[in-house]
């Protein structure tokens, strides 16, 4: 039985009847003011031209920035051992099956131009997947913060326990275990003979890492109580307190080389900051002068087993960092493309586009519309 709704409503007086009318706000009635982007050739033209005109000079500037950075890469994976110069045995051979063996080798190189400004020394590894998931996971942040009371984190296995010595490993994990252990020093062949280039070992790690992620346990020196239950990682030749013999502050897990190594790299071919050339030394105030140089390397780090290579990179930096022409070139390319497109669209617009003004105004000169 249909009941008319008007019958119900009539019992209410007009005053106390609630209005069911929906609110008339712009949002609810979908009348919000809006901008309608019309993306025809004519409207997009100015954008393309502006981008083109802005990008090309910026790109050229960026490219110059990059060109001003001086960089040289010196590979040394297969450098010949100093002791075995007659047999030409490489350090790689010596280190291959002998973990813990030390080999010394020397590499000579020339700088064609002067490296002005601060010069940074990096070691570069290839084919080393620091970004592998199991590798990235394999660390114990509590240990690195100095807490040695509990057992190592299970993520560290199989680098958490030394079966031979029956002791826990400090610092545990694959990252710490595979720490770069070559020692490199730089010499300059000057007129007065071979000059060692003074290198700074600190200031290479990020402050936030140093301050908040790495702290030594209270007593970690040789003979301390902690070494009853802990031992160093299996692949290390040096003990934890021996990492920096010159600077006692830079030792233990607070050693900056370790900190730099523990920040896992993004890609399999990476470089890490090793040393900074000391510019307060007399001869090298302006940077590294042109000339002959040689690197003396204590080769202990083995990379052959995973087909990797090692190199030393000497580089200055610009405001934008290291040498990378990609940004400059890409800006130039995009700017050029935009200019070309702008011209193309201008051509299309002039020849085939019709402005709405033309179309809506009929004057004696309007062409007759015909089918």
């Amino acid at each position: 039985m249909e009941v008319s709704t008007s019958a119900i409503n009539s019992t209410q007086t007009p005053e106390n009847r609630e209005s069911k009318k929906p609110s008339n706000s712009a949002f609810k009635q979908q009348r919000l003011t809006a901008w309608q982007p019309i993306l025809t050739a004519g409207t997009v033209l100015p954008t393309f031209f502006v981008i083109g005109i802005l990008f090309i000079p910026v790109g050229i500037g960026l490219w110059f920035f990059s060109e001003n950075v001086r960089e040289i890469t010196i590979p040394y994976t297969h450098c010949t051992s100093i002791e075995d110069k007659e047999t030409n045995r490489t350090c790689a051979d010596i280190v291959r099956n002998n973990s813990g063996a030390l080999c010394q080798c020397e590499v000579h190189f020339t700088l064609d131009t002067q490296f002005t400004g601060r010069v940074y020394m990096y070691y570069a590894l290839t084919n080393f997947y620091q970004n592998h998931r199991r590798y990235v996971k394999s660390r114990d942040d509590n240990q690195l913060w100095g807490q040695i009371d509990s057992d190592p984190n299970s993520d560290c296995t199989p680098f958490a326990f030394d079966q031979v010595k029956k002791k826990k490993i400090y610092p545990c994990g694959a990252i710490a275990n595979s720490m770069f252990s070559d020692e490199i020093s730089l010499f300059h062949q000057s007129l007065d003979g071979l000059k060692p280039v003074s290198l700074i070992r600190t200031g290479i790690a990020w402050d936030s890492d140093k301050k908040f992620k790495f702290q030594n346990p209270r007593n970690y020196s040789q003979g301390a109580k902690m070494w009853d239950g802990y031992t160093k990682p299996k692949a290390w030749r040096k003990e934890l307190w021996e990492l920096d013999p010159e600077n006692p502050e830079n030792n233990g897990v607070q050693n900056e080389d370790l900190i730099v190594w523990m920040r896992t790299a993004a890609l399999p071919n990476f470089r890490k900051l090793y040393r900074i050339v000391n510019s307060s030394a007399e001869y090298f105030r302006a940077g590294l002068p042109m000339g002959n140089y040689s690197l003396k390397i204590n080769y202990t780090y083995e990379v052959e087993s995973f087909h990797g290579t090692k190199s030393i990179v000497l580089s200055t930096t610009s405001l934008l960092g290291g040498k990378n022409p990609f940004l400059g070139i890409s800006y130039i390319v995009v700017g050029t493309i935009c200019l070309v497109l702008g011209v193309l669209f201008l051509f299309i617009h002039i020849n085939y586009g019709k402005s709405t003004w033309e179309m809506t105004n009929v004057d004696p000169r309007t062409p007759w519309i015909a089918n």
Partner: protein
Amino acid sequence: MEELKQKTNAHLEEFSTQGLRTLCCAMAEIPDHVYDEWQEIYQEAATDIHDRERLLEEAAELIEKDLHLLGATAIEDKLQEKVPETIAALLKAGISVWVLTGDKQETAINIGHSCRLLTPTMELLIINRDSMDTTEECLLNYIAQLSAASNGVLPKDNDAAVIVDGPTLKFALDPDLKDDFLKLCCSCRAVIVCRASPMQKAEIVELVTIRTGAVTLAIGDGANDVAMIQKAHVGVGISGLEGLQASLASDYAIAQFRFLKKLLFVHGAWNYDRLTKLIFYSYYKNICLHMVELWFAMYSGWSGQIVYERWTIGFYNMFFTAAQPIAMGVCDRYCSQEMRLKYPILYRQNQDAFNLKAFFTWIGNSLLHSMCIFWFTYWLFGPGVLWSNGKVAGYLVMGNFIYTYVVVVVSLKSGLETKSWTIFTHISIWGSILLWFTFLTAYSYVYLILPIGLEMLGIAGLVFSAPIFWLGLVFVPLATLLPDLLFKALEDTEFQTLADKLRQCEAEKVHPKAMLEKEEPFRRPYKDDLRNLGVVQALDRVLLQGYSYMSCFFMKGSNQAAKKNAQTSGEGNAGEDEEEPEEDLHSHFSDRDSDSDEEQQSALIVRNVRLNQQDILYIDGVEEIELF
């Protein structure tokens, strides 16, 4: 008795041709004891559990006999306001309109005419038989008749209407005849079913819904429409004088029939467009983010290392890309309300926007974007020395670079796809990007307060202090979205859809009339002939005086179309002024749709010229000029 019956019949005919709803009244005198007996039977029937309906019917049969005819009554069931206009608009939008009513045939036909569903020129195919065989014969006859013109193939759009009677429908819906019946109905412009019971209404709707695969909408206002409302894809109930039954059972309830126009053309079209964009965009933004992991896996030994930090991944859909699809899905308006109501043809344009091709285009687009973002960042990153202090970045720095660029690209893409930028669009785009920067900063230092986020400690400092990051922030989104922008600009220039044309007109505040006429490069010498007829002089005179628009159009093709349009325009002149542009538009499109290879005959029909809405000058005498 017979005389009374004949008289009543005549009255009924008269009433129904006037379009009134007729009812016959009859009476019978029932003595008390008969009634009491019957009452018991009826009670039993009413309370039966199994066969209630059938028993009730039988009980009713017992008492409803030997009735004495009194006469007939007629009610004028007024059509609601603006029903004819709404139906005309629906037809223009390419929507097939079928009327299913319980009225008699003549009433139904009359109503059909008055609401402009049936035009005077339409052929009425009446199917009103009383047996299966005759119905079949009739159907097949009609089909043969219609396909005669085109070699036995039933043409798609006939200028005919099918009128079916309720009892005949029973035969027509028989499994043998169903297909033919449906074929015939679908090829005609309008279908009217009269004397249909609620069950039959539902049956027909179901037939169309299932067999044709079209989206069906059923609209009704009484309890007898509930069944059909539920069967259709979309059920609309009109709440009003007949009660709330229909609206309670429906998906949408409106107050008057004419609101259907706005419901479909404005809200329906807008929401379809919004939903399509929202769905595609949701796929797009997630693929864009997560595909980067695949490209990174190429460089991380396929070990499954994620390049972003895990909580940033978790918050992506919750915080940083939640506002954009909402803003698109709630506030975007593709072509304004006024335009959509004025030009129903727009409804037809966007009907298949959600298809496989569009889907795969979006997916391909998102793959391309993820590749661009990853590899541009990869090359930008280089060996990782991004600061003048020579220090080196780790994988998280690269991850956050990529994440930032993804958020920016994805936000700007939502802006590119939005057809009308409201305040919410701005908030969603710029707000999300800002939110990400704020979050990154906060998350980088939260470890100082709470024991979470050790991995991310200090990352914001690293990322924001690298000039390459900011240069990349300008370059990477731009380079990634440049092809998109290019594609859109080309599409809008060369292949502009009607809706976009109208949007452009509205934005530039010009009347769309002239915009709709496609220009052809070559001229034909009509001018001289027309001058001789004095038409052009008249036009010149008129045009010199202020704003005017001319409703004139050229058609190619047969004169048949011309005649038809001239006629409908004749009727339309009595109606509102806004109708005319639509009709031009309609014929503009129908001519484009119909492929006619005939020799190009053009006819100039100038129907009227309006001048400042005050002086109306009709050049009606010039109906048709054939020019060669």
